[in-house]
């Protein structure tokens, strides 16, 4: 029996975890937080620079004359328009137009792409590659991924990069050397902040970590765990597979599946590209308008305070993001469910991502969300708001 798998950065991350706060992510052990409480790590994402080990992501290299054709038939966005050194955020669907996964397509050169996602995709890619001249390679284990996120991330990176990373635009990538270590730098992230994701050979990952930590000290670089990242991504309105939606390949029942439109990702479904999985179903759905929609909920602070006050308790917000489903009501009738939420330190507001049935997903709609206080299931008032909750200029600038 093998031990739980660890990422290539484990030798650096492990000693930092002070309170045994580990979790499993895609079969790997990663830190939920290094501190017992994620506030400091979160603060680094929003005000300095945070270094996050996201190596458990699945990464596939797709190369060959038909690489574009393969990806274009798999994902919902138009890959033919993806230029070299560009990355696209996209969903991919089954034949019924239900989302299997979401992730990133990066074009490394004319005939080479990297696909990253949160579910294993090798089998699916090869099922789609029938008759195509393309080589698939699972790079998940061979490549470590570090997210360097935060307003000062550019400054940190500039200190170690061989090339002009400062000029790297949003959703573009470059091959360069960081502290002498060959890496791919992409201006992407899960936080909607200024940030980068760094792709490096697994055996050089520790060296890169060390270099970044050393170079970033003046900018307050801070290793951050999944709690902090989760808070940032909820603020950013980014969904997470297995939490906010179920992969169509793993959902046991139909109602657990979602279309891109229902997830608020209709914009990733290109209306004028060539054939791809689910195209017909998605075309029909675009016309019929989806019945569900993923929205943001802002929870009314006073209403939560009142629930606590009834018991003579001071109001307490959850210290870490929550992921258990909570029913959402409209006038006492359930109209949806929240799938993840957190206290947003930035907005000073409890927020949540929720699936809400039409027509209650219009911004401004007043709903209530289940809130358990002192062992009693109560409801807190909430308001539908457009996603994301937070979208700073610096992300693109």
């Amino acid at each position: 029996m093998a031990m739980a798998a660890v990422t290539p950065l484990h030798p650096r991350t492990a000693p930092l975890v002070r309170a045994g706060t580990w979790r499993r992510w895609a079969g790997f052990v990663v830190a939920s937080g290094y501190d017992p409480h994620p506030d400091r790590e979160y603060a680094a994402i929003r005000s300095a620079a945070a270094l996050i080990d996201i190596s458990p992501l699945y990464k596939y290299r797709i190369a060959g004359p038909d690489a574009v054709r393969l990806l274009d038939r798999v994902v919902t966005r138009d890959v033919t328009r993806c230029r070299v050194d560009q990355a696209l955020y996209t969903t991919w669907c089954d034949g019924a137009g239900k989302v299997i996964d979401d992730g990133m397509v990066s074009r490394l050169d004319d005939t080479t792409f990297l696909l990253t996602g949160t579910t294993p995709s090798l089998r699916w890619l090869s099922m789609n590659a029938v008759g195509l001249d393309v080589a698939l390679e699972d790079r998940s284990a061979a490549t470590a991924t570090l997210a360097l996120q935060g307003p000062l991330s550019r400054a940190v990176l500039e200190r170690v990069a061989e090339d002009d990373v400062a000029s790297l635009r949003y959703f573009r990538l470059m091959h360069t050397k960081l502290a002498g270590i060959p890496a791919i730098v992409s201006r992407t992230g899960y936080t909607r902040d200024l940030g980068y994701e760094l792709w490096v050979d697994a055996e050089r990952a520790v060296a890169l970590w060390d270099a970044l930590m050393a170079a970033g000290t003046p900018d307050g670089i801070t290793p951050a765990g999944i709690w902090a990242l989760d808070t940032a991504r909820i603020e950013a309105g980014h969904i997470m597979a297995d939490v906010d939606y179920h992969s169509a390949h793993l959902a046991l029942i139909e109602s657990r599946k979602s279309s891109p439109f229902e997830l608020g990702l209709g914009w990733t479904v290109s209306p004028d590209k060539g054939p791809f999985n689910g195209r017909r179903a998605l075309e029909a759905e675009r016309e019929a308008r989806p019945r569900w929609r993923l929205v943001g909920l802002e929870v009314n602070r006073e209403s939560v305070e009142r629930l606590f006050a009834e018991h003579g308790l001071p109001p307490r917000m959850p210290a870490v993001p929550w992921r258990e489903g909570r029913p959402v009501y409209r006038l006492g009738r359930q109209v949806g469910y929240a799938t993840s939420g957190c206290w947003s330190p930035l907005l000073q507001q409890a927020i949540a991502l929720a699936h809400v049935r039409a027509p209650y997903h219009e911004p401004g709609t007043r709903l209530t969300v289940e809130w358990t206080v002192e062992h009693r299931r109560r409801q807190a008032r909430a308001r539908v708001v457009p996603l994301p909750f937070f979208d700073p200029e610096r992300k693109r600038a």
Partner: protein
Amino acid sequence: MGLTYDAIVIGAGANGLVAAATLGRSGMRVLVVEAGGSTAGQARLHEFAPGFRVPPLRPDPGWLPPPIRSALGLEGPGLERDHPEFPLTVALGPDELFPLPRDPAAAMEVIRRHSPADAERWPDFMTRLRSLAGFLESLYQLPPPDVSARSLQDAWALFRTYRAFRRLGRRGMAELLRTIPMPVAQLAEEWFEAGPLRAAVAAGGVLDYRLGPRAGGTAFILLHHLVGAPPGTIRGRGTWRTGPNAFTEAAGEVARRWSVSVRTGDAVARILVRDHAVRGMVLETGEELHARYVLSTLDPARTLLGLVDPAWLDAELLHAVRNIRFRGCTAVVLYAMDALPGKVGADDASAALAGVLSLTPDMDALERAADAVKYGEVPARPHIELTAPTLHWPWLAPEGKHIVTARVQYVPYRRRDGRPWDAAAGDALADAVGDVIEGFLPGFSNRVLARATLTPADIERRYGLTEGAISHGELALDQILFMRPVPALSRYVTPIDGLYLCGAGTHPGPGVPGGPGWLAARRLLADRR
């Protein structure tokens, strides 16, 4: 710009011509394109030695559903059938045959020599088989039953199927449901004790199927090939009187009467699709033909994986189509003969060769023949069935000469050693087959003027059949009815608007000439309304 038709049918075999005629009759402008030099599909004559011609694949022309016959007015003396006196004979050794005559009394007489009890059961057995096959007969005139029937037409078909089922009576219904998933070996063992008789019954359950008689579902295969068989027949449905391709000739004539054009020698390079709808096709010559509908008699894999850009098919469907089990396992050795073998013991070999002469005298030998192919090997002792088509149609060979065809099972399409089927391998196979024949019919090889071998790979090449599968896809229980070829394609339609499948890869499958073509064309006409 190319020519424009309402519909183009790919393949001028029985199904293609029937589909074309059915559409032409409704006033559509229809073209049939055929890659071969002539029409007739699998019934096409193959001149394997100078002056010796034969359709190698289909000794049994199959059952023609009466509604097709009457709807298209397929009549004429050519479509009369001749029935051999001995539809099936099992060779027991170099001096003994076990012929099963059509006449029940005569059959009982023969069987009695091996088992009096079996002789008594024979008429009941044949009646039972006929009644069960009779149910399939009604099933095969209708589109496959759709359990989730939505349309009135589907519901009506379902109701008719149910009515036919009830007509079997309680015992018959239970018997049908019990028999269909059964191994044919079990059926044979339940009814009979005599080895040769068991072998005779079992051989009909493994026709072109890669498993042996102990495999579940082989009883169904036996029934399938007895749909429309005349009383007393345990094999085959009689040959067309005027020639092996009498049916395709008649169907072609009807098609032309309805202004269908036929182009032979034109292979399709690809089917044109735009926005999920078929637009026509490109021929290998580069010529473009346009049509709103395209019907393909090619097998589902050739059609969807070979002629269509796979991007138009969802990955799940592609996966399903790639997993259709074709598994050709039949090879054919053709013999040009100076003369037919004479007597075997007291029996006349040529009387047996007018029907099918099986050289596998017991069921275990049949099963053993199937063992090797599972591992990609040619069995040491293959199952061989001989027929002499020149006994029906002497003109297939020069005056006084004969042809014997040997159907050989089980021959792997993919060989264990990974080597291709080249001429040397084909020759080695034919030598092995020759040895077996010689053991039963001494002197056979001295009468052979020439021989030709069709391995599964040759059959694939020559007839465009994936993996050399004459069946267009195994007749296994999970590949029949609403599962044929795969559930999503079982209604003849494909995810590409206007593209229909109408070959034997769809319900009711092989051995029902024109059956799939007719049902597919009717489906198209209903969709058009």
